[in-house]
């Protein structure tokens, strides 16, 4: 099996290996390191053009407090949660239904419907920008939470359906036959057999959807305008205008925004990894 572990006594090889790993790691993390470093700097440091050097003075506390006191950060974060959590719920519920039906029932048009779900993923978002904004204005949802919730649910469900369909299709068919022969209705099969067994997949899907919606910038600026509903990604961009060169605050805000998906990943890591390997260890 490759990669083979290096022999403990091959010092030379070990040294080279560790160096390469370290270099790649630093390169990989460089943008993040830069953002973290910037979030620690004082305004003077940045004005002096010291972007990469050791900070002359640390302003960690000030930056991280200021980003909450001087901006509408709380409001933005709350907006993001108000948009992301219902979206995740909606996507999970809908894709469980669609995935179940598309994996276990044969009916005319099933393939076409599935193709539509999958095909939707291949549409470039940019070409939908104007029609979707137009639509939201007309149905009077523009610049509301619902604009983003409805849009994200609609478009995340496509991928989520593909995902759930494949997981449910991988469950042993005899389980469904057993439940049916015991008199369970299709809804009971879904509730008592399918959902408990695809919980890892649901957890994985929840993380993916949450991260996508939380990190979305494009649709946030297309479908919202006011600070009252703007999610945090779009809100952060506002800081650029209000605080001309307050990169330290933007950096601090960025770090804070990055935390929830990371926390969520760790919380659900167990399920997530189980979800990725679910198909391999059925039964």
């Amino acid at each position: 099996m490759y990669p083979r572990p290096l022999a403990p006594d091959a010092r030379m090889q070990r040294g080279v290996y560790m160096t390469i790993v370290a270099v790649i790691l630093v390169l990989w993390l460089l943008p993040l390191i830069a953002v973290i470093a910037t979030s620690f700097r004082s305004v003077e440091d940045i004005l002096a053009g010291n972007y990469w050097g050791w900070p002359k003075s640390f302003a960690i506390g000030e930056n991280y407090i200021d980003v909450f006191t001087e901006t509408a950060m709380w409001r933005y974060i709350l907006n993001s949660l108000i948009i992301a959590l219902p979206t995740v719920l909606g996507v999970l519920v809908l894709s469980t239904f669609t995935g179940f039906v598309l994996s276990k029932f044969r009916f005319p048009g099933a393939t076409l419907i599935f193709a539509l779900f999958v095909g939707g993923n291949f549409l470039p978002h940019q070409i939908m920008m104007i029609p979707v904004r137009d639509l939201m204005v007309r149905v009077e949802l523009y610049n509301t939470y619902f604009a983003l919730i409805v849009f994200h649910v609609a478009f995340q469900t496509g991928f989520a359906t593909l995902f759930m369909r494949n997981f449910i299709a991988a469950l042993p068919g005899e389980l469904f036959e057993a439940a049916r022969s015991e008199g369970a209705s299709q809804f009971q099969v879904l509730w008592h057999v399918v959902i408990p067994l695809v919980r890892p997949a649901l957890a994985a899907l929840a993380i993916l959807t949450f991260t996508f919606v939380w990190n979305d910038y494009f649709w946030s600026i297309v479908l919202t305008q006011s600070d009252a509903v703007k999610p945090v990604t779009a809100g952060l961009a506002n800081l650029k205008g209000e605080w001309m060169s307050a990169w330290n605050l933007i950096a601090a805000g960025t770090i804070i925004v990055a935390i929830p998906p990371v926390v969520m990943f760790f919380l659900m890591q167990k399920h997530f990894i189980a979800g990725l390997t679910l198909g391999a260890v059925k039964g």
Partner: protein
Amino acid sequence: MNRSISEIAGSLPKSVELQAVAKNYGTHSVLKGIDLAIDRGEFVVMVGPSGCGKSTLLKSIAGLATLTSGRILINGRDVTHQEPGDRGIAMVFQSYALYPHMTVAENMGFGLRMVKRPRAEIDVAVERAARILRITDQLDKLPRQLSGGQRQRVAIGRAITRSPEVFLFDEPLSNLDASLRTQMRVELSGLHAELGSTMIYVTHDQVEAMTMASRIVILNSGLIEQVGAPLELYANPRNLFVAGFLGAPRMNFFQATVDAVAADTVILQVVGAEKTISFPAVDTGSLSVGETLTVGIRPEHLAPLDAPMPGRVDLPATVRLVEHLGRETILYADASPLTTIGSESGTGTFTVQVNAVVSYYHGAPIRIGFAPSSAYLFARDGRTLSPRRTAGSGGSLT
């Protein structure tokens, strides 16, 4: 016992009745018109080679496969278009199909929970089934904590809990190792005696069929070849397929041409051997001289002879392989240029089963003898031409 049950059952509706059951997948027809009536309390084993349609037939009875045409009646009720849960059946699957996230007790009570039976009733039913199968101490475990045999018991327990009219088993023992399979076979027979329910059991294992069935149904490419009690089928196979299918080691077949025909005898010239043999036969009117027939002899009806014996015909052969099974010995003897058909060990090879320990060196010349009355004759279309014999005696050598 069986007879009295069937006498009583004569006045009652049949437990399961299949009427011209047919099933097509596209243009491929899997079941080509099956008619079968099963009495209450029977243990019917459906057996046949892979692809014969036995599992599809079982799923059709369960309602998991829809019929192309025909009717299925359970207890006199037409269930052809009913949901599986409303048919009064319970199915035990090859893979056990236990719900992995439920405990043993939850697995067993699932069916009753789904139809909203009261909690107390479910507990009583689960408790009873667990006691019958001796898994009372496993009730709180998850399926993955159980061994294969225990999982199998839970799967059966789940069926018992629903107290169905008919139990359906789909190759339930094929995932178990040999010794456990023997044990479960005995337990299943015991369970059948204890519950007295109708059981339909699908397997490809003829030992299971022979040992457990009150009646065997032999299926081949979507049609019933023969139905009957195990020993009856063994002694009086209706055709060449059934003769070749039942019995391990398999029946030996070789070809012979008709030399002369009388009312109850045919004299055959063995193809590839300078030998004419006179066999008892029925329905000889249809035979004509020169026609090729198939002769079948079970391995236990062949014996190695040291010298010619009166009443036995013998064929010269050489020993190719000797298998010592302890109590018995299986000889593979080459009688070419005589050709055997579909032999397990190659063309021209006879399988001989000796109920003693015998030793031969490779290539030893022997004579394999048999009584013509123990042989079976098959016409060109496969139908049996030999006279009926009593089930259980089978016209043995002794």
